[in-house]
């Protein structure tokens, strides 16, 4: 009787440890699955665009005359 109870406890321990292993594997699989991964939610996106600044600087007549 005592031997049988001892065996049952051992079996139960092994079953529980296997169950823990299954849960641990499931957790890792969930973490790696992009559908559940939080990294996708913080995806960085960038977009650039450009504008122009322009003017034409003419020679000042005073300077032109001085040159002339």
């Amino acid at each position: 009787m005592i031997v049988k109870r001892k065996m049952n406890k051992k079996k139960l321990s092994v079953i529980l440890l296997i169950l823990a292993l299954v849960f641990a594997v499931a957790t890792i699989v969930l973490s790696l699955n992009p559908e559940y991964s939080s990294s996708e939610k913080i995806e960085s996106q960038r977009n650039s665009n450009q504008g122009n600044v322009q003017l034409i600087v003419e020679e000042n007549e005073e300077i032109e005359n001085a040159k002339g």
Partner: protein
Amino acid sequence: MQKDNFILIIAIVVVALALFNLTFNLTKFTGYVSDTGDVNLTVETATSINFSNSAINWGAGKVNVGETNATLDTEGSVDKGNWTTVTTGLIIENIGNINVSIDLKTGKNASSFIGGTGPGYSWKIQNNETDSCSHNETTLEDVYNTTSLTDIRACGNFSHEADNNQIVIDINITVPSDSLKGARTDTITATATASA
């Protein structure tokens, strides 16, 4: 006997911890652990900005005779010169569906753009529509500052909401009488980065 009990207790504790960890992760990633039906869809974020006014052009002009420099800005002022006045700066619109931060840089500095003795090339940022930029995290807000050849933060949180999604970059330049002559052009690059 005592050893078996100990192993059994350890096994129970390990299972409890594994179960807690799994439940915690499910809750963290999905937010749902209840046994209900879900309707799922994914709305993708689009980061997109556009210059609705992409060019500033003062046309041709010169520094008035006897003056050491002329000052031009995009708020309708041309001082000591005869360039055409410009009343609108570069307008950036957030046309995406997510708030973004905006960084700005120029292709040239005052010396390479204008040249001469004591040239000036500065900019400032203002809302073109109310509350478009909720916090600037920058010194560019409402005050002219020297332009930058490297990215500088112009707006920390640029709204994408309609009627609140436009900012304006005003430009102020100082043209010395001995500046570089001819067509002077520069390009301003705005980069939007999606806010988390």
